[in-house]
């Protein structure tokens, strides 16, 4: 804008300069002439000057005006038009005769303006086309979503809603509009969503999604804002186009409120009912036994009736167990239980920091696959840790995974006072993070059929322990026949015989513990160790259902893979188990003063005596060997393997239990019961008799070996 006067002013000044200069030159010429001219010629000179000067100035002025009109102004106009075209996209009404006199410039400028406008138009068209295309695609997607029954919501990694369908609105119970760009976390309970996304992102980043059965999906259960409905969602992680980074997720919801509450209600009803039934049956059975016991003995019918009071409650107990199990399965399918690695869970507990306390938390020990609802378990453990921090006044914790006979344990360890069950009960009644919905710690435990308690952890640690189901992955075992263990005849049976009064008791009345071990190999003197011990008790000729001993043992050495192929026990199954020094005393306590029995007892006893020395216990009760007893009855020429004896007595051992310590113990026990019956018929009635015939078998075999 400031240019306008500038250019024209400059041109004017230029012409003015020409005019002024010419006039000045003329004046100077006249003055020079007047210097030497007679005074009467001065007026003529002045006139001459005027005649020259005025036309000059007039001409200059006229040329300037023309120049201004035909060059300066058009230039300025053109400049303005170009500016307008540049900045405002105007096409400009450029009069064709404008700039006639500055021709190359004018037409070029016009061409430039036209091209600019054309480009602009094309760009606008392209943008409009792209926008229309996107709108079309979105319309198609919305049409698809409309037809899906479930509520679908698509979000980015910040949980901002990118797209959703009408059903989502209904299911999520949101009045009005969900609003694109709104956070999903403000519409449903946020913690399960956060937790699942975290898990999926971790799974993707560590590459585990390739082998994982769920791939990039996860189940999640949330509650709606009004806390009245519970929704089950399936979350899928979406990736960017190259597939290298997570972009967001799609989540599809279904309403499971009725299903869940019905399930919970049904579960509770069943559990209460079975528990009550157990109590009642137990009372009935006991009362019946007492009455029977008071009848005169010796009557066969009384014995048969007594039998009823023993067998029927046991059978009913089994039935109730089955019922319980079925109920649990029903409920479990509704909740999002998944297989989680225990260290992942514990890491999430450490990172949870829900109360912002400054705790020093370390994670130790091995890792196990657990079957649980990760989000709630993490919250529960976090809450417990926070409460313990105040109660025991300690900021230092260690989180670990332990392994029992059939359960895994999540342990919170600290140094300080233990928490009594009564206090734990109060803590468990508290609502957990509201983000999960209205559930308490007790609800979480109930859902997992679990519990928590405090116990000593050794080395001055106190432990809060929560048991959970393990997901066992056993190695496949070959069906082919495997060689039986070598037989040992160095074992001296007669040592303990005379000392005990039970020696003259009938075999049928004895308390026997039938046991079996699994080991790293077949050579006890060459560094092989026990990795599993199991035992079952026989009392009065009956295998006791409820009392079994079954324990893994950490052998402190590697298990050879050939050995694992036999019994299916691998190194990670025994890591975290107690060592032999701690297991043997427990086994010793389990045995008490019962008579020990095993199939090929000398082999197991060799291992047992080695461990017993270091553990500080002694197994000095008499030992019977089912191989030797069977040899006495059937002769040494027939096969005396556990499989053949079981077959002979038509005892069925399920294949998955064969070559487990517990399975073999039970099989041996059942074989033993039959053997005792047959021995009784053959005149071998007391323990002394049994030991005697065993000794004879040993010497026969020794003699045979000598050949």
């Amino acid at each position, binding site marked *: 804008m400031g240019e306008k006067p500038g250019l024209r002013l400059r041109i004017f000044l230029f012409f003015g300069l020409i005019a002024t200069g010419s006039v000045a030159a003329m004046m100077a010429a006249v003055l020079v002439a007047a210097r030497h001219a007679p005074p009467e010629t001065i007026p003529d000179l002045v006139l001459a000057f005027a005649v020259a000067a005025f036309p000059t100035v007039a001409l200059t002025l006229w040329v300037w005006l023309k120049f201004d009109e035909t060059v300066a102004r058009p230039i300025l106009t053109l400049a303005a038009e170009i500016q307008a075209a540049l900045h405002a996209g105007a096409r400009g009404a450029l009069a064709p005769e404008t700039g006639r006199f500055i021709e190359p410039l004018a037409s070029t400028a016009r061409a430039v303006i036209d091209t600019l406008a054309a480009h602009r138009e094309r760009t606008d068209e392209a943008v409009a086309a792209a926008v229309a295309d996107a709108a079309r695609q979105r319309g198609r997607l919305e049409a698809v979503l409309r037809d899906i029954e479930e509520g679908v919501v698509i979000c980015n990694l910040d949980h901002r809603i990118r797209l959703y369908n009408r059903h989502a609105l209904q299911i999520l119970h949101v009045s009005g509009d969900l609003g694109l760009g709104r956070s999903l976390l403000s519409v449903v309970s946020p913690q399960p969503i956060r937790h699942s996304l975290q898990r999926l992102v971790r799974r993707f980043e560590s590459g585990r999604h390739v082998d994982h059965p769920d791939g990039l999906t996860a189940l999640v259960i949330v509650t709606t804002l009004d806390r009245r409905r519970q929704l089950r969602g399936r979350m899928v992680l979406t990736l960017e186009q190259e597939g290298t980074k997570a972009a967001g997720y799609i989540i599809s919801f279904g309403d499971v409120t009725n299903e869940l509450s019905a399930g919970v209600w049904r579960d509770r009803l069943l559990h209460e009912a079975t528990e009550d039934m157990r109590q009642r049956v137990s009372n009935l059975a006991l009362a019946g*036994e007492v009455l029977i016991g008071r009848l005169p003995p010796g009557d066969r019918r009384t014995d048969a009736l007594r039998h009823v009071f023993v067998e029927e409650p046991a059978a009913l107990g089994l039935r109730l167990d089955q019922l319980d199990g079925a109920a649990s399965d029903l409920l479990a399918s509704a909740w999002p239980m998944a297989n989680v690695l225990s260290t992942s869970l514990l890491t999430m507990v450490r990172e949870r920091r829900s109360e912002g306390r400054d705790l020093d938390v370390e994670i130790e020990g091995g890792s196990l696959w657990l079957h649980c609802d990760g989000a709630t378990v993490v919250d529960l453990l976090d809450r417990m840790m926070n409460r313990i921090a105040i109660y025991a006044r300690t900021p230092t914790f260690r989180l670990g995974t332990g392994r029992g006979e059939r359960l895994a344990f999540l342990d919170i360890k600290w140094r300080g006072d233990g928490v009594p069950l009564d206090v734990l009960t109060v803590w468990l009644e508290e609502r957990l993070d509201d983000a999960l919905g209205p559930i308490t710690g007790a609800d979480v435990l109930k859902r997992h059929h679990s*519990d928590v308690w405090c116990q000593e952890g050794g080395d001055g640690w106190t432990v809060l322990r929560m048991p959970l189901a393990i997901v066992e992955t056993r190695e496949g075992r070959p069906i082919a026949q495997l060689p039986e263990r070598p037989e040992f005849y160095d074992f001296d049976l007669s040592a303990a015989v005379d000392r005990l009064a039970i020696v003259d008791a009938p075999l049928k009345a004895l308390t026997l513990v039938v046991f079996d071990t699994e080991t790293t190999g077949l050579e006890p003197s060459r560094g092989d160790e026990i990795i599993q011990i199991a035992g079952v008790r026989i009392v009065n000729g009956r295998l006791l259902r409820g009392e079994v001993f079954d324990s893994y043992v950490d052998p402190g050495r590697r298990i050879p893979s050939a050995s694992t192929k036999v019994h299916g026990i691998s190194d990670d199954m025994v890591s975290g188990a107690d060592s032999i020094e701690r297991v043997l005393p427990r086994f010793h306590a389990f045995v008490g003063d019962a008579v020990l029995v095993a199939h090929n007892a000398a082999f197991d006893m060799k291992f047992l005596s080695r461990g017993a020395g270091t553990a500080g216990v002694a197994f000095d009760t008499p030992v019977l060997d089912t191989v030797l007893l069977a040899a006495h009855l059937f002769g040494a020429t027939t096969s005396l393997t556990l499989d053949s004896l079981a077959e002979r007595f038509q005892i069925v051992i399920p294949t998955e239990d064969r070559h487990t310590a517990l399975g073999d113990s039970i099989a041996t026990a059942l074989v033993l019961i039959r053997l005792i019956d047959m021995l009784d018929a053959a005149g071998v009635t007391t323990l002394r008799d049994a030991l005697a015939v065993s000794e004879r078998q040993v010497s026969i075999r020794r003699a045979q070996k000598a050949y």
Partner: protein
Amino acid sequence: MQDTVLVAAGGSATALAMEFLLSDEGFTVYRAEDRDGVHGELDAGACRVMILDAAFPDGGGFPLLEALRCDPATKRLPVVMLIARCGYVETEKARALGADAVVEKPFAGPDLVDIVRRLARRPQARTPRVLELADDGRHAMMHHG
């Protein structure tokens, strides 16, 4: 001196049946209805073995077991826990809290008697009494051995 057994079991039916069962087998049986009763009987005399029902009224069986194990006087008292739920969790909990044996209902009488007998034979400084705890307040039969 007869072996004395303390039965702490909610429900008079259970308590009664166990009392008969055990006394027929030669034990002296005491019953207690609540925690005060338990402590009363344990303080007054010595019990060889205690049978404790997990469904014990007045706070539950597990907390009572926990309390008994904290008290040095009853720390080594042999305790048999009766649980109604089959499951490894209850068994594990009972064991972790210090029970010496766990019996699931329903159980065979002779099995319980065998267990009690075995635990009673454990060397002990005192002879504990067996307390039976009924939840309906019947304190009728109180033997002192």
